[in-house]
């Protein structure tokens, strides 16, 4: 079966440092892959390369088998419509109301009328359990957890084939984080899409992942089913999962 998304030999150098040094990952339909790894190991750069926000120096990004890095801009833009993304800080537009944020793509890219777009935005808000009375407020008036919910509603409104999550639980209290994890699992299941998440929150990774890959020094050093995480046989994974300062990974302080 063709993977929905496949990264092959992705390399990226930033400010003279080799951030990604041949990253290979793939995720199939209805599967959820979580990439774990320490700060500065290239998780966000991997996600940006996959999303087309950053051009890799080498390697391929295959979406349904087609390499998007070699596509003309217009065709690439069409392929990118298959993506939905929940950003770490929400990345909601300050100048727009919550419903306009959620319906942004419908209004501006898909040219859906504002009335219908609002209805669909409110429906998406209900799905992520964000009360419709927040539809007309500005994002700044929402709590961190509500901003994540609004960001999730924005990511799922156009029914993407591949969902990306960048540190979905960062900055949230444990209960809200767990609620967001539940929502992510539910949304991925409902949409039947592929999901790629990056996080260093291990409870979150365990909850939302079918498979976990560990990125270290710009390379995937381990990959396996979530159930194997605690007996991976990889010293780096064991150190990371246990959260120990001593081990093969040097803590950056």
């Amino acid at each position, binding site marked *: 079966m063709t993977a929905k998304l496949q990264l092959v030999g992705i390399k990226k150098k930033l400010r003279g440092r080799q951030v990604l040094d041949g990253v290979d990952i793939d995720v199939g339909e209805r599967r959820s892959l979580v990439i774990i790894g320490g700060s500065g190991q290239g998780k966000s750069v991997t996600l940006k390369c996959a999303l087309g926000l950053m051009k890799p120096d080498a390697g391929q990004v295959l979406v349904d088998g087609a390499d998007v890095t070699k596509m003309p801009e217009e065709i690439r833009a069409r392929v990118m419509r298959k993506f939905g993304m929940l950003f770490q800080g929400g*990345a909601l537009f300050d100048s727009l109301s919550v419903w306009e944020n959620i319906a942004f793509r419908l209004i501006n890219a898909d040219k859906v009328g504002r009335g219908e777009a609002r209805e669909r935005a409110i429906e998406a808000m209900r799905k992520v359990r964000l009360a419709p009375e927040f539809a007309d407020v500005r994002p700044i008036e929402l709590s961190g957890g509500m901003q994540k919910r609004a960001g999730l509603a924005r990511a799922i409104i156009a029914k993407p084939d591949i969902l990306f999550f960048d540190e979905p639980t960062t900055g949230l209290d444990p209960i809200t984080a767990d609620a967001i994890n539940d929502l992510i699992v539910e949304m991925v299941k409902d949409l039947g899409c592929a999901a790629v998440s990056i996080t260093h929150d291990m409870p979150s990774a365990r909850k939302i992942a079918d498979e976990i890959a560990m990125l270290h020094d710009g390379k995937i050093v381990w990959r396996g089913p979530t159930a194997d995480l605690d007996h991976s046989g990889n010293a780096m994974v064991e150190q990371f999962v246990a959260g120990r300062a001593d081990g093969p990974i040097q803590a950056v302080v």
Partner: protein
Amino acid sequence: MINPFAPIGRGFLGMLAEIGRFSAFVGRAVAAAVSPPIFFGQFLRQCMQIGYFSLPVVGVTAVFIGAALALNIYVGGARFNAEQFVPNIVVLGITRELGPVLAGLMLAGRVSAGIAAEIGTMRVTEQIDAMTTLSTDPFKYLIAPRVLAATLTLPILVVVADIIGVMGGYLVSTSSLGFSGAAYLRNTFNFMEPQDVGLGLVKAAVFGFIIASVGAYQGYRSNGGALGVGRATTNAVVVAIVLILAVNYLITAFFVE
């Protein structure tokens, strides 16, 4: 041995690279402005933001400059017994030079800084990346409407500045310098030629383009959180002001010659 010319060479190469990046950015912004989809609602919003809401600051500046100009010309003219030329020189100075340049400088502070801060904040909070993932080109949605709006509204602001500036001169001249109101206005209109206003409007359109594109460029390229946004805002104002003054000279020299 340290080569003393190395830093100069590095700086020069850096400047050339920056000019190249800015030119590519402007080319992309212009292409976005003239090809569909056009975000007309955004364009109208920016016309209000850049044009309409700048009216008070441009108007207040113009009235004081017109008044001060009249006083100075009166004092200077008195040395040659040429005080009667106050209306003529006020209208010439305002329409050809001070109207567009001062409106441009005021908007470099108000608009260029505002655009850099807004787009810079959107950049560092990943809102621009989010827009891209939502299948919307930030050049079309954010940058093209601002560049178009500034280019088209600054000439209108300058017409208003011209009128208010001339009225500033009129008020001072009739209240303090002993000019008759009717004679002042007659001299103004008889002396003023369409190309005086035309030159000011050409300058205004070019300044508007510079103000928005410099602000957008600095904001779009900003990084490093609040510090980066602050630096982008400062750079936007400084670069826009320097470019306005330099381009003002070039346009004036071109039309005079």
